């Protein structure tokens, strides 16, 4: 008797277990990846960004030519861009699950599963070697699945799920279940809400990894970390509550710069303080824009310095915004907050980044014009560690 029960349990897929625990009904719907659909941004609006004053010590009025400095640095063979970090995630819609509502109706919600990978590589003697890698499997469920609304429900569910034989057999654990909001006052699709949760979790992991690198004393003025994507990190509530912790959080980013391939050109202002995408589009090769500063209330009182560099000639790219990198750095010290970043430092970092334009990943990645090779390698490294979509979906 017990052996047949065991056998039954063994055959239990995750969705059955989940439906059991949460009291929903699993529909065994079509399972598919969501990544090739439109990539939803984290849900804070661009409009909330407040552009402030210039944020560098030399008040440049126009583009700054970096090519002489770039050549000089290339001939000296030293390097300050030593670490490269990239996080990525893959999300899948794995099932539909229904929960009863008032009046005997029930509503169907999607269940989203995600693989998160965050990796860091270091450049040693011009070769890129992996340093750290973190991987996580997460689920995102509608918040109504937690019937009682008691704290600790989701971690307990995740734990229970991980005891399932199916997962034990393949050696996988779901680290957490992220509830997405089901309230009707937002017009976003449930899938997008869930994806945003996974994305937020990934950013959380990235932050942890940066903090880890700092704690280990790896980052300093000779060893900068280049992070792929934006630096618009939100400090957690705990961060904000503890002042000391908050300062540590900011300090972590002293030796971190971010390089974004994609950016919204609408949120760039020209020297007159008006939004002017043309100012960036016309950026000549090997030049940078002056540094601007902005604050985002969503992100706390952190001030960001932002500037743009053109790596590729417009003649060789598809659009005028291809070949431009958006660089961000957090203003950490009091000096920086008051007078802006040292322009020399900006020039040096920009020149180093500009020298990263070669080699390219042309042919392997459509975004080759905006990619820098060590980041591309880090990304490839992280992606190579994913469980294949087939194997992953088969768990559900």
């Amino acid at each position, binding site marked *: 008797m017990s052996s047949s029960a065991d056998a039954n349990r063994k055959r239990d897929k995750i969705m059955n277990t989940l439906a059991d625990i949460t009291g929903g009904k699993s529909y065994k719907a079509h399972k598919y990846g969501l990544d090739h659909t439109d990539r939803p941004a984290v849900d804070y609006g661009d409009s909330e960004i407040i552009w402030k004053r210039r944020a560098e010590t030399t008040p440049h009025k126009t583009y700054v030519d970096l090519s002489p400095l770039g050549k000089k640095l290339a001939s000296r063979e030293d390097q300050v861009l030593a670490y490269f970090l990239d996080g990525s995630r893959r999300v899948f819609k794995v099932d539909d699950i229904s929960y009863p509502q008032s009046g005997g109706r029930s509503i169907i919600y999607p269940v989203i599963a995600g693989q998160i990978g965050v990796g860091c590589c270091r450049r040693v003697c011009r070769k890129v070697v992996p340093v750290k890698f973190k991987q996580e499997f997460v689920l995102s469920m509608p918040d109504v699945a937690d019937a009682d609304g008691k704290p600790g429900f989701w971690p307990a569910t995740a734990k229970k799920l991980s005891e399932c034989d199916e997962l034990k057999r393949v050696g996988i654990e779901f680290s957490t279940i992220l509830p997405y909001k089901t309230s009707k006052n937002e017009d976003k699709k449930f899938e997008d809400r869930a994806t945003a949760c996974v994305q937020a979790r990934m950013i959380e992991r990235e932050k942890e990894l940066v903090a880890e690198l700092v704690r280990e004393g790896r980052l300093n003025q000779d060893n900068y970390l280049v992070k792929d994507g934006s630096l618009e990190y939100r400090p957690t509530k705990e961060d904000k509550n503890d002042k000391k912790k908050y300062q540590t959080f900011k300090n972590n980013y002293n030796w971190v710069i971010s390089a974004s391939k994609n950016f919204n050109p609408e949120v760039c202002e020209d020297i007159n303080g008006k939004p002017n995408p043309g100012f960036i589009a016309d950026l000549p090769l090997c030049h940078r824009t002056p540094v601007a500063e902005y604050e985002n209330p969503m992100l706390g009182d952190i001030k960001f310095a932002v500037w743009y560099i053109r790596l590729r000639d417009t003649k060789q790219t598809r659009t005028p915004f291809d070949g431009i990198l958006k660089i961000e750095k957090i203003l950490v010290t009091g000096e920086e907050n008051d007078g802006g970043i040292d322009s020399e430092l900006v020039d040096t970092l920009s020149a180093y980044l500009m020298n990263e334009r070669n*080699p390219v990943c042309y042919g392997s990645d459509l975004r080759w014009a905006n990619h820098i090779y060590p980041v591309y390698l880090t990304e490839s490294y992280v992606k190579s560690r994913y469980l294949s979509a087939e194997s992953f979906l088969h768990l559900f």
Partner: protein
Amino acid sequence: MSKLIGRVLATEKNPTTMDEFNFWTNSDLKLHAFDIVKVEHIENTYTFGVIENISHITDAQSFLTNFISSDFGDVDIEEPTLRVGMNYAKAKVSFNNGNLYTPVHNNAKVYLATAEEITIALGLDRIQNPLVCGSLKMYEGTSEEVILPVHLNSKFILGPEGAHLNISGISGLAAKTSYAMFLMKAIQDQYSSADTEDSVAFVIFNVKGRDLMAIDRTNDFSADAPGERDRILAEYDSLGLSTDPFKNVKYYIPYSSSTSAKQSTYLTKGDIENYIAAVQLKKFKYIYSDDKENIEMMFADIDDPAQTMESIVSKIIDKDDKDFSGLSTWGGFMDKVAEKAQKGTAGDKGDISVLSWRKFKRVVRKAIQDDMFANAVNPTKAECRLADELKQIRRNEVCVIDIAKLPEDKQAFVFGDAVRTIYNLKLGEYDAESGVEPPSRIIVFIDELNKYASKDIPKTSPILREILDVTERGRSLGVVLFAAEQFRSAIHDRVTGNCATHAYGRTNSIETSTRDYGSLPNTYKNMLTRLEQGDYLVQNPVFRSLLKIKFPKPIYKQFK
């Protein structure tokens, strides 16, 4: 423990098979073609592979990617990050120590092999009657470098299992003569010390300068760098060979009268006198009454579709022929021929036309215009008949016959006569004569085999016939041919086809593109065009695969 150098690659497009596999390695690892690697395989066995080719790849999708990576063609651009790249090597399976030829598995560990394992992998551990034929070097230039002596089974080079050696390679760069001499030195060393009933003697033709005219004198290494002498002697030592030059050497030079201005050898008068004083040298002559059978050798290069020349020769050697029987000198013979070539000669029934006689006369007159065609031999002046001397050859003797300064037709004549004598000697034709005690094996070495056995030689050539006899029947008779030529593809198929051992030295790409090299992989073909002097690819039935070997410089006196 062996050094782990990589892992096996097996993909849908490039699977591992029973004969080959690919594996990746660090791009800085030094490996060479012909190096042996060891792969972990099922049931705790190891599969050994011989490296055939090494490729380097990067993540660049196309050439264009690389071009773009230098700012669209700026040659001065240095990249701050090296492109991700790796080497992958293609290896041919040579052996599995559990006889399991199931393809090796993906990601299986690939190691460098130890000297012992290399010996097993190449099948060199179970060679009977070992005869050293050089040394092989693995993992050259690394800290794991291995140097091993290579032995082949002497029964597979001297018979009776397999016989004959063919060495090919371009002049000057391949050191063909040196390699043949190295092997013969190894054979002499082995047979003079071995306690076997088998015995061996050597007949060597010197075809260039004084090259082989002092093989019993030591090399003074005067033309080499200081320290070279010790290095080479140590190399001989490590191969288990003595550091002495050849022993029991006799030299034979064509006779030329001391008054004649034209000498038929490159040896100096002093050398000749010294050799004669040491009873090492004789001058050979051809006497009409004994050597008329060999007249046909003078026609080796002449087309004879109607076989008229052949019928004249058989008339001449006919004991009952009314015209030619009883003649005893070349002069008398030429007079008779001249008489036959006269218009309206009486007494002949006309079975051979006057025109044929004239052609015959033309060829023979030119051929015998040499002092070595003489009327009598004077043994007190160190003169001899070559055939008589060769009949007397004894075990471990080396006879060097100098034909370097003779014109081509006379070289052929001497070579043909010598080969015929040796062949007949081993056939037992002279067994009744006193003092005939041939060794069980006689090795004949001739350079420039293409002169006598090329594909263009007329089928009727008596010398080609002799060579074919030797290559096809010599294995059982005990006549072994060591031959060298520039272009193997030019040699008669029946000659190369009967050689058990082949040594390929440096050659050119035109040669390697011929059909004869079709069975070699491309990498090896290209390798043949850049082999260093003293490097050979050797093929022998006892080796599991082609081996790349080296041999030390000659230990006998060199003339520069």
